[in-house]
């Protein structure tokens, strides 16, 4: 008896919504970052779930790629956040608005 696909998708949607809420509502860059990770993993879960449903490996492979890229992105992202923090003394993204037009 397999777990129905709907549960996976529901969980994924909840995770994505939580991640999105975190990205949109939080002001601390680290928390936004966590939100982004949550969104990524929600998507990964969807990929793996559909892969399982179709009994093919493509989705799972893509999930691996996604993780690797996410890991690289974490490195770069954290470095940027640290650099911004050192420079401005804060990690509040609303105050990092020097690129406004």
């Amino acid at each position, binding site marked *: 008896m397999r777990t129905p696909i709907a549960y996976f998708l529901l969980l994924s949607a909840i995770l994505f919504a939580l991640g999105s809420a975190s990205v949109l509502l939080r002001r601390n860059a680290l928390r936004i970052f966590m939100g982004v990770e949550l969104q990524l993993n929600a998507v990964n879960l969807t990929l793996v779930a559909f892969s399982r449903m179709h009994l093919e490996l493509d989705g799972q492979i893509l999930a691996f790629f996604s993780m690797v890229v996410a890991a690289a992105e974490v490195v770069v992202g954290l470095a940027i956040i640290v650099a911004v923090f050192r420079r401005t003394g804060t990690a509040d993204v609303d105050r990092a608005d020097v*690129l406004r037009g």
Partner: protein
Amino acid sequence: MIDLIGLAIAIPLVAAGVNMLVGARLGRYAGWLATGAMAASFAIALGALLDLLSLPAGDRTQVVTVAEWIRAGAATVTLDLRVDPLSITMAMVVTGVGSLIHLYAIGYMEHDPRPGRFFGYMNLFCAFMLALVLANDFVLLYLGWEGVGLCSYLLIGFWSDRPEAASAAKKAFITTRVGDVMLLLGLFAIWIHFGSFDFDTVLGAEGSLPEIATGTATAISLLMLGGAVGKSAQLPLHVWLPDAMAGPTPVSALIHAATMVTAGVYLVVRTHVLFEISEIALTVVAVIGLAGALYAGFASLGQYDMKRALAYSTMSQLGFMFLAAGLGFSAVAISLLVAHAFYKALLFLTSGNVMHGLHDEIDVRRLGGLVRDMPWTAALFAVGALALSGLPPFSGYFTKDAILELASHDGEVWAYVLGSLGALVSAWYIARLFFTAFIGDRRYEGRAHEASTLMRAPLVVLAIGALFAGMWLALTPDGRLATFLEPVVGTVAEGHAGPSAQVLVAISVVLTLLGIAIAWRLYRPAAAERWISFPEREPGLAGALGHAFYIDDLYAWIVGTVGLRGAAALEGFDRIVVDGAVNGVGRLAVRLSGLAPIWQSGKVRRYALSFLAGGVALLVFAVVRV
């Protein structure tokens, strides 16, 4: 030697280059180098003249091609030099009088710290002047024309640390520029009409007339007259000449008496064919000349600065040359030009002696009695004055009075009467200078020292020329120079109207003596107090004469007051209307672009929200479409 005529220009040019580059190291040899170059140039011109004389009269127009110069489309300009009686006469004056003035300048400028630059400019000036007179087409003529303008600027402003010299240089350059532009327009008209700048095409080869309508000829002639008026300091572009005396005195003698100002006369005589086709232009030349002769003669009477008085005298004499050219007596105009070069150079250089001997004092009110300290200078000035006043047998008589005589014989009574008045005034103003500066009581402190031998020697040569050149040039019945010039300028047709020649000579002598007598009556030593206090007694008349009838002041008012106000008004229009439109467009763009950055707040979360909104919208779109 005719083939080598190019060297007459090249040698002074090279010497000018050497002097300007390494003149500082040459020290006092700079002057000798420059003088030597001029002497060499003179020798070449003399050789060419002798060669020309050995040819029959009909073959005396030789063209020497030096190189092809400009090739632009249909216009090919070869660097041709023209050796004919007119150009070689001019070249002889430029190199002959020029070398004497250079020689004099060695002595005059011996204390100047920059002889190399001075003599470099002088040589360059002579080279350009020679290019002007030896040109075989209007392009080279124009090159020389502009070149002498440039050199006159450099030389008038040679003492550039003196504000009046710097502004006089600018004034000379800008005033003559007005004329130069007209000349340039005339050259354009020539190109449009003839498609060539060559003298033979434009002026007609020997014996033939150029094909040109009267109206076109009038337009071209008047434009060229505009150029000539500027360069020769005739009304109404004469204002630069008196101020130009701010330059060193040899410059005044070289540029503003003997050579550069004669360029205008040369141009009119060279192109006399066009003037003659257009009768109107010829009359205009005569009227301008006569008006200038009278105007400058009277203006000279009001000057206390000796050099300014001589400058107006130059303008007056040039007026007589224009009068002669305008009446169709080109050969006589050139005779006067040659004689005038001698005596005016002499007069200027003797006044230079006075300045040199008296620490630049040149105001006749503070001179007087110089004959005791400077007997040579006084005698030489007297020679120049006699030559200018027109007493027979000196140069002025054979040249200036010849113009009046011919005018009378031609039935041009107005020209004769007014010209005679001008001659009377000439005798008056030049006698005035002699009486006020050289005889009577000394009005200066200390003692004037007589000029050195080096400065006297060239003056003696000039004095001999001033005394006898006119007579020698006019010796044969038709005039030696006139006969020589005939192939180029045509014959002087003598009429038979009016009184006979003997009567005219008598009138002329009486008028000249009358002029001298008036001068003696007014300026004799016993009357010194009277003429010195004349401005206080008659401020109106003295002011009018001293300011040359306020024409200069009128120009200053037009340019300085009216011109500046107009410029200010135009500037306001430019600022408010033109700039307003341009800046308004810019400001509008700035305002509009101010609306754009709303989307670019720099707030990361707002961007993220728009990502999400976009993603949701895509999703909705996909779902709805399915």
